[in-house]
């Protein structure tokens, strides 16, 4: 099957995020950049689907600046076949324009199925994959933790956790978009031969301006701020019986939350 994966490069979740002094954005100086963790699950599921369907190719599609190539190479080292990067260097983008550009590539490539992470851990937008699906009039399932390919390879059966312990089993006709949550399959590590091979796998480059057709962002992040620091509170000391009684009293009478 011809499978696309929408991949974004994000700061590692252990990164302490700093703000520029004029509050206009994130200070990117000390950031360790990685594949968005949910997109890593998407790559893993895409590779498994390729195997289950008896072959084909997995194409990594990224809208991003030059450094995103490192994360794309990492996905190629995991086993993806090639990449397409929409170069956004110097272009102001938002979730809308990003979805618009990606939808153009998905449509040109004629993917049979597209994988994405359920959200990017930087802007937490939960918009891009849905936007691509709306633009293409494709179905989209979100968030998904288990995927099975139908016998005719024209549908997938997926499990969607709804929260509160409830899960839906859905069947989606392809082509469609599957937004991956952390599922049962941990993303594979790139092997040494995989890393070597990835170096020569092709990454095509497209210009954002050619795909945008004059479209511009619909929202702007105008002011960035850190949340107020929480102060350390009271440490309760004493015998277990005594501290538990004190805690219940404090939660009931002082904090008034129980």
């Amino acid at each position: 099957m011809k499978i696309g994966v929408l991949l974004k490069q994000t700061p590692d979740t252990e990164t302490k995020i700093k703000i520029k002094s004029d509050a206009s954005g994130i200070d990117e100086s000390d950031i360790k950049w990685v594949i968005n963790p949910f997109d890593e699950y998407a790559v893993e599921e895409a590779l498994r689907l390729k195997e289950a369907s008896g072959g084909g190719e997995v194409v990594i599609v990224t809208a991003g600046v030059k450094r995103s190539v490192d994360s794309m190479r990492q996905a190629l080292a995991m086993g993806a076949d090639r990449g397409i990067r929409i170069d956004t260097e110097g272009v102001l983008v938002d979730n809308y324009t990003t979805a618009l550009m990606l939808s153009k590539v998905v449509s040109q490539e004629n993917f049979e199925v597209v994988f994405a992470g359920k959200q990017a851990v930087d802007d937490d937008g939960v918009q891009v994959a849905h936007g691509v699906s709306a633009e293409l009039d494709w179905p989209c399932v979100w968030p998904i933790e288990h995927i099975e390919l139908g016998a005719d390879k024209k549908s997938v059966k997926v499990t969607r956790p709804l929260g509160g312990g409830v899960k839906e089993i859905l069947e989606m006709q392809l082509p469609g978009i599957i937004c991956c949550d952390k599922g049962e399959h941990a993303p594979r590590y790139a092997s040494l031969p995989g890393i070597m091979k990835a170096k020569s796998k092709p990454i095509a480059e497209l210009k954002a301006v050619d795909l945008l057709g004059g479209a511009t962002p619909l929202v702007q992040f105008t002011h960035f701020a850190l949340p107020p620091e929480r102060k350390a509170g009271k440490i309760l000391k004493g015998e277990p019986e005594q501290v538990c009684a004190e805690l219940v009293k404090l939660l009931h009478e002082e904090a008034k939350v129980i």
Partner: protein
Amino acid sequence: MPGILILAEKEDGKLKNYSRELASKAVELAKGLNAPVHGVVIGNQGSAAAEELGAFGVQEATAIEGPAVQALLPLIQELKPQIILASASGMGKDILPRLAMKLKAGLATDCVELSVENGKLKAKRPIFSGKVFVDVTFLSDVQLATARPNSFAVTVVDAAKKAAVKTIQSAGEGGRVVVKEVKEAEKGMKDLTEAEIVVAGGRALGSSENFKTIRDLAETLGATVGASRAAVDAGYISHDHQVGQTGKTVNSKLYIACGISGAIQHLTGMQSSKVIVAINKDPEAPIFSKADYGIVGDLFVLLPILTTKIKELSGK
């Protein structure tokens, strides 16, 4: 013509609490626009919940029976609202991005503050799971936002008032996504993102059986069970329960962290909670720096006692 359209949700025939919050906020915002709020309730037999919107000052509402997404777009095209709001629930997060694309409208998700400035919506929302907050300015004529549960106050204008409700049938057959089955593993627990109280366990729990001590306390408090990534990765509990940047962000009034040391990606997922309690053996655990109340000690000794004391308090 309504200024604001809200997507409300129901459970057991009544409005979800976050939909009450949303209605209250929308009515407040509508004053700045000098235009009314129109409520929409999705799902079968939603008319009672739609009527309930009247208590918060919403005068007109539509109940959509059947597959909602197909009916929603024509309704929006008919009513032409300037602002469309939903909750950042599973449904809101799934539907609004598609609407935004179809309407070529800007969307701010998971907002913790909403206001109307110069006739347009303005929003504040967390990014990086709450490590940073951004102000969102809209550049589009139509503005969409989802509101984070537990972020806005419920304001009852007149408890006896009912909204005038029109029910429409959504003709939607042959959808390309079909629900085959619904499995309920742990019924009755609120989702982490909307829970008022969360009791969370970390790697120190040591096994899935030991999570019972967390579940017992949670049940006593009517709380949702949470977990750290370490506990999920160790297989003690499913990923549904993971709090943090690669799990869910909670916005509870009380968060009790048990045996969780407090990795940065966990702290970001829970630090907007109103009151945080930390129980940990290690006095140096970073979690204590974020906690309002801390107890240094063995959770297996402390939690059963705590559960008993809370039962005594509530007279159970």
